[in-house]
């Protein structure tokens, strides 16, 4: 993917962000930015704070030091109402989908619209159907409960819920975790399709090379809580950086 837009201003910016849990420093002066319309993939060893980055971007966590800026605002310093307004611009796909287990597929996707808008039930139903179609969920699954659908479907429904409010930014936390290669490929195509069709800015935390090659405009390699390398996928995977080569192993695909 080479559709990076260097002229676009940064939508998400981390400036020297530090975050510790107990005595373990997970982020240690992390600096990077994501420009409007760009898809940044974040890669790195387990426990280096990849998911922590996403949680900072939506204000679920506060940095110990440094600044996180999203659309020019610091989520951790916003008042609840201001944070709610900012969060309406962000969609978040959690690792397991994080569907509400007592609501059907349809009601899960409708939930943010029912709770936060004054749309009629007919308007909500139309939007829900549109987004479930986009993520290729068959109509006969609309009334199933989360416990009745597969892991891949849960992620697709989670993505439909993240997209139903038409966010400008979408954050993906390991969208391929626990999925077989075929379903992973369909999720990757979906992420790319969402980005192209809706023009979203995205961060994808992912380990799988195939996913990154499909969706990313740039790849950031995280090492010891810092940005070790940030390059477009082609240059990234052909880089001779010894730490990256050690991480990717002899057969990165």
């Amino acid at each position: 993917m080479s559709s990076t837009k260097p002229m676009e201003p940064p939508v998400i910016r981390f400036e020297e962000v530090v975050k510790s849990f107990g005595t373990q420093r997970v982020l240690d002066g992390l600096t990077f930015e994501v420009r409007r319309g760009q898809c940044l993939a974040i890669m790195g060893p387990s426990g280096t704070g990849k998911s922590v980055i996403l949680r900072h971007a939506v204000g679920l966590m506060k940095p110990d030091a440094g600044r996180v800026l999203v659309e020019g605002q610091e989520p951790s310093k916003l008042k609840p109402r201001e944070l709610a307004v900012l969060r309406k611009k962000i969609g978040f796909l959690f690792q397991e989908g994080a569907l509400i287990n007592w609501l059907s597929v349809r009601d899960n996707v409708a939930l943010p619209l029912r709770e936060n808008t004054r749309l009629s039930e007919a308007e909500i139903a139309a939007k829900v159907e549109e987004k479930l179609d986009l993520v290729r969920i068959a109509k006969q699954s609309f009334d199933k409960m989360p416990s009745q659908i597969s892991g891949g479907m849960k992620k697709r429904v989670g993505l439909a819920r993240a997209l139903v409010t038409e966010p400008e930014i979408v954050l993906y936390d390991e969208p391929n975790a626990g999925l077989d290669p075929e379903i992973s490929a369909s999720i990757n195509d979906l992420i790319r399709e969402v980005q192209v069709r809706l023009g979203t800015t995205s961060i994808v935390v992912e380990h799988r090379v195939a996913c990154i090659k499909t969706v990313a405009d740039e790849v950031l390699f995280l090492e010891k809580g810092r940005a070790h390398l940030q390059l477009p996928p082609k240059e990234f995977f052909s880089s001779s950086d010894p730490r990256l080569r050690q991480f990717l192993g002899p057969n990165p695909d």
Partner: protein
Amino acid sequence: MGIWTTISGLGLALGLRLELFGAVLARLHDVPRRRALIAQELYGSAIQTLHVILLVGLFIGMIVSLQTGIELARIGQQDQIGTIVAVSMAREMGPFITATILAATVGSAMAAEIGTMSVSDELAALEVLSIDRVKLLVLPRVVSLMLAAPLLTVVCDAIGVLGGGFVAQSQLNVSWQLYIDSALEALRTPAQFLPLPKDVWSGLLKSVVFGALVAVIGCASGLQAHGGALGVGRATRAAVRDSIIAIIISNYFMTWLLYQS
């Protein structure tokens, strides 16, 4: 250091529960919009614990009747069994037993359900979606238990009095008619501002408070859960323990307010 840590921990837990209760009160205007969820929770809490209330209430009434009946029979006062069973069920045993059963069944389930949502990122998802989790998760549960507790208390009171009557008649040679008459007479103490006898409405008032306590503590424990299945287990245990402590302490103060003054 250990004592201060414990005290500060208790203070924090109490503060969080009070804060949650305040948040529920501030959102009471949303009750009509949540009526479907409230009805669903009410069904879950009332119907699904009814058989336990019936069984435990029956035996509590029988125990009270037997224990007091044996002593009263020694002084030839067994005619008063109906009075004692009816008053003790309506004032104390009914609300207390019902609340304890609700804490062990419904309160623990609330903590487990919300705790599981917490450790599986469902609560984080609600937060990211800017969905008010107090309105969605806590308010329906608190309101439903504030309705279920007095309804179940009435059932517990009634079955307890019936159980007491069965023991009085079969083991203490008190006629059914005499037992029922003395029980009803005891509950006729007029109230100043309500059509119900004081012993009945004071018991129902207690049960409403107990219902709110059990639900708020159950939900708060669930919301604070972290650390996977172990965390859910800890939250469930804390919910039951803290609910029973809160029921007993608040029971003393309500009894003092309602009867001593």
